[in-house]
């Protein structure tokens, strides 16, 4: 396997189109006749579509694929799959089936593709789902991902925007994987930082989601391409505000160093342009600001949980080894939508 994956221009979720550009296009699409069984469509900018089949069962559908952000094909496969599966967990669902989505150059060693798909398939198994097919295209660049179908009880869906004032916000993974991968692309990331980022990106959000089912979750989303603040902005839904405690944000430490070296993605700046006008920083370092806008690949879940249950949920998440933290709380709508308050950490 001497042939390396051709490194893309911006791997993982940094390759996503900006939210601003996207909503311009989506707004103009013809909608067709409304179907009451479509419980969540793309109008709500949620993580996945949910369609009610019976009163007890709704299917959750999502797909995600992107160019590599790491060199090793097997690792890339795992990350891409974990990222795609995550949307089902963000809806509160259970994974059932998955289909491979593959773009691969005809001239490249097929063993590379085999490794990518092996990584993906292992993740689907770990998710408790079954790989049931796929589609491949000959393309100049490598891209891989999954189309995933899960199920959820129609009354237990996690919307991404139904938080209530008073709810506590919990984030289940560290931020900064986008910046670390970017630093790695220009050979400036340490091995330790890169291993930490890979370990985070190949961790399914399965456990976090399962644990949360026992609590009153009002809103949930997975933090991916639009960055923590971009997804938080969607969660606020134009009718809520929140306080975020910057010193409570779980973050890969080296990401702050790399941000101070300006090893920043285009995606992060697009996120700043999009969500920045809704955010006010007080006493927050430049590096932390960048981490909060950093596009995450296979990021953690961001949950709005009923205040009284927050500590218990947090303890349970931490007990199973997740770097979860209580990062803020939702308030009534205020002049500033997202108010990020700094602390002592640099």
């Amino acid at each position, binding site marked *: 396997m001497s042939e390396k994956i051709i490194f893309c*221009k*911006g791997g993982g979720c940094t390759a996503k189109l900006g939210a*601003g550009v996207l909503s*311009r296009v989506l707004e*103009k699409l013809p909608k067709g006749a409304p179907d009451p069984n479509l419980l969540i469509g793309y109008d709500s900018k949620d993580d996945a579509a949910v369609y009610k089949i019976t009163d007890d069962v709704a299917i959750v559908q999502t797909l995600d694929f992107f160019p590599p952000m790491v060199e090793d094909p097997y690792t890339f496969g795992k990350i891409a799959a974990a990222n795609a599966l995550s949307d089902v967990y963000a809806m509160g669902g259970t994974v059932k089936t998955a289909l491979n989505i593959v773009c691969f150059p005809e001239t490249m060693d097929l063993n590379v593709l085999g490794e990518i798909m092996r990584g993906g398939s292992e993740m689907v198994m770990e998710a408790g789902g079954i790989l049931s097919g796929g589609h491949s295209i000959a393309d100049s660049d490598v891209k891989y991902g999954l189309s995933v179908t899960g199920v959820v009880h129609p009354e237990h869906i996690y919307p991404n925007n139904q938080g209530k004032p008073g709810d506590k916000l919990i984030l289940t993974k560290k931020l900064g994987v986008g910046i670390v991968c*970017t630093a790695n*692309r*220009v050979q400036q990331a340490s091995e330790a930082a890169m291993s930490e980022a890979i370990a985070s990106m190949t961790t399914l959000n399965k456990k976090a989601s399962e644990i949360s089912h026992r609590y009153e979750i009002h809103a949930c989303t997975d933090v991916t391409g639009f960055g923590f603040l971009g997804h938080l902005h969607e969660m606020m839904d*134009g009718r809520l505000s929140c306080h975020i405690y910057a010193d409570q944000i779980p973050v890969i430490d080296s990401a702050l160093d790399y941000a101070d*070296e*300006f*090893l*920043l*993605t*285009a995606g992060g*700046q*697009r996120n*700043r*342009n999009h969500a*920045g*006008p809704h955010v006010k920083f007080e006493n927050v370092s*430049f590096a932390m600001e960048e981490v909060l806008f950093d596009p995450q690949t296979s990021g953690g879940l961001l949950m709005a949980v009923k205040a009284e249950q927050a500590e218990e949920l947090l303890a349970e998440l931490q007990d199973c080894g997740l770097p979860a933290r209580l990062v803020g709380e939702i308030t009534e709508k205020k002049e500033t939508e997202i108010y990020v308050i700094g602390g002592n950490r640099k």
Partner: protein
Amino acid sequence: MIKINAMGDTCPIPVVKTKNAIKDMEGAGQVEILVDNEIAVQNLTKMAVQKNYGVISEKLEEQKYRVVMTIGDAEDSEEIETPQGESCLPDARKNMVVVISSDTMGNGDDELGRILMKGFIFALTQQDELPSTVLLYNGGAKLSCEDAPTLEDLKSLEAQGVEIMTCGTCLNHYGLTEKLQVGSVTNMYAIVEKMTQASLLIRP
């Protein structure tokens, strides 16, 4: 002045090249960086601001931008002319919404009011910072329809990326539904949403 060609480079390469050039310079001086996208300009600007370097940027042509950083008190620094091209700072029009509720501007003489409104919309096309949206309702709905003297300027705004939205109920009321020539038809829900989300509302 050191010149860096970062055309075709994606972030963070332009920043990395610039940092290396500044390091090699070992002191004061100027660096000119050419890049092909606005996001790279913004990332370079961010770095310059953090490092307290002087920075200006300008758009030279489609997909060609120039950023000049001044490090320290560069004595031999070339006098930097104010950029003529459009500013590369984040798009400020994001939240500016223009609300036009009549085909006349101001109260008094309607004939004069119509001339003023035509002038207003023309002047709008000439601004450096364009609005994100122009909302047209009641008498304003006439401005986006066939034969309106304001049609060309509204089309020009639309071509520059401004969203032109005309109230459907109003078009219907004036019998103009088939005559809309620019932008899209909208409803009260969308009008209210655009107005509440605006950071700046302009009402002529």
